[in-house]
């Protein structure tokens, strides 16, 4: 429990800061909707003139922007890189700090197994991501309520929360794996940025390509808000696939930690 609360407190400020950023940004999009809803028809005509590949890259259905959460989903798909960076960073920071800060000889000589260290750190990451999700979705709900657009959005927001949390956990697990595969990474931000940008680029190919299989290669495509909005639920294949990916990433990380030499290098 001490490891969990220690890591939770250590990363709480960063998580709150990011959740605030996300909430403010999302609120901004929703308020933006109020100002442009009169001109949405003109905007649709504008989008219709875009070349087909470009429209494909923008997402499944541009028509969803006529609703506030639709506009939000549409714009969010372009900034989804940022939460991904944050989740990878969180994984790297929670699991990589004993190696990058050289505290492994302090922490791993305490009476707690490496398995316990690992599990508690994963739980602290989960707790932070859940907190972030709850805050983010709560702010969205609140803004929609004040806009008078909350009538049929409750279930959508719950699916949004699931989609957001699951995607963040996949990226968190990815950060965790990187922390144990390359013990001693110091520049968390540049690594997170690079990895997230790589998967974001694959995502661009996935949405513009002819095959659905590419979607399995990038966590950005597992649980998109616009898909949730159009289908009303999470894609079950991608849902189970993302759970599998999370399990595999954590599994390899666990094996690596419990079998590696962990002294200060």
């Amino acid at each position: 429990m001490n490891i969990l609360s220690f890591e939770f407190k250590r990363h709480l400020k960063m998580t709150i800061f990011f959740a605030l950023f996300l909430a403010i940004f999302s609120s901004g999009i929703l308020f933006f909707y109020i100002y442009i809803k009169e001109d949405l028809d003109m905007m649709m005509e504008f989008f219709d003139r875009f070349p087909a590949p470009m429209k494909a890259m923008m997402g499944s259905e541009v028509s969803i922007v006529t609703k506030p959460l639709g506009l939000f989903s549409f714009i969010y798909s372009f900034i989804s890189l940022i939460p991904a960076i944050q989740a990878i960073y969180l994984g790297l920071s929670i699991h990589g700090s004993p190696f990058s800060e050289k505290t492994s000889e302090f922490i791993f000589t305490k009476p707690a197994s490496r398995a316990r260290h690992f599990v508690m750190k994963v739980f602290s990451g989960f707790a932070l991501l859940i907190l972030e999700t709850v805050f983010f979705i709560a702010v969205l709900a609140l803004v929609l309520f004040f806009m008078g657009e909350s009538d049929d959005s409750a279930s959508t927001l719950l699916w949004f929360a699931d989609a957001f949390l699951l995607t963040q956990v996949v990226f968190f697990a990815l950060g965790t794996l990187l922390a144990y595969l390359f013990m001693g990474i110091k520049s968390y931000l540049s690594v997170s940025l690079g990895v997230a940008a790589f998967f974001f680029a694959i995502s661009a190919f996935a949405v513009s390509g002819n095959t659905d299989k590419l979607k399995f290669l990038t966590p950005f495509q597992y649980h998109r808000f616009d898909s949730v909005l159009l289908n009303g639920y999470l894609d079950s294949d991608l849902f189970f696939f993302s759970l599998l990916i999370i399990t595999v990433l954590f599994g390899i990380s666990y094996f690596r930690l419990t079998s590696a030499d962990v002294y200060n290098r």
Partner: protein
Amino acid sequence: MDKIIEVKHLSKYYGKSRGVIDLSFSVEKGEIFGFIGPNGAGKSTTIRTLLALIRPTSGTATIFGKDCIEQAPNIAEKVGYLPGEVYYYDKMRVRDLLHYSASFYGKNCVPNIDRLCKRLDLDQDKRIETLSLGNKKKVGIVQGLLHEPELIILDEPTTGLDPLMQQTFFDILKEENEKGATVLFSSHILSEVQKICSRVAIIREGRLVSIEDISALKQKQVLGVSFEYEGDEAPDLVELKGVSELTVDHNLCRLVFQGDVNELVESLTKINLVSLHIEEPSLESIFMHYYSTQKDHV
């Protein structure tokens, strides 16, 4: 006597690089056991294996009769460790770090933390990042001792501590030892091992050279002696047992001495000295001398 630490044929390779080779020794309950060797000899590798930070390539190590790797968390409850290089969470305050460290032991360590901090003159309100190396070392000492461990493992513990604080630290160690704690004290400084330890294992290039009682080691102590004398006749010290590498240049005499230091002093009193320097040679030269002596015996 109970064996607190028992190392049997321990070898560790980092890929093709040598860590330690076929190391075997044991530490008895209640003793302060020195572990001495030059940098890169394998002292830290041995200690890290005992603490399950690294896994041995072959051989076994047990602490309190338990396997160091398999039962590491159980063993760690009764072990205090001070690493050679101290790194902690820079943004934390000393108090928070020590309390976090204490939280692993399931007992109230606050009185002991306060007592040790007071003794070492360590300000608990300071952030780790603002501390000097010496003060970080003090944090290391407190976090290693706060739970009153039965076994204290110290890897180059005095680095960064000033002489006064070193003495305080040795006093604390002796007190812990009197209370029943066993100590494994790793160092590359022979004099500090001699000061506090009862037995010492000498390690070089990953292999155990010898295990000696400190009293026996003192008999084998190698000293570098140089003195300036008055008069035209060079002093005759060749006959003195334990003198080697004797050189005389004008009125400056240099020699290496191994043996009873009282005999050396007695011989020197017969010389009209202008100046005298007796110093502990580097560990490497002690080893060279020790080896050459061993080879001579063979």
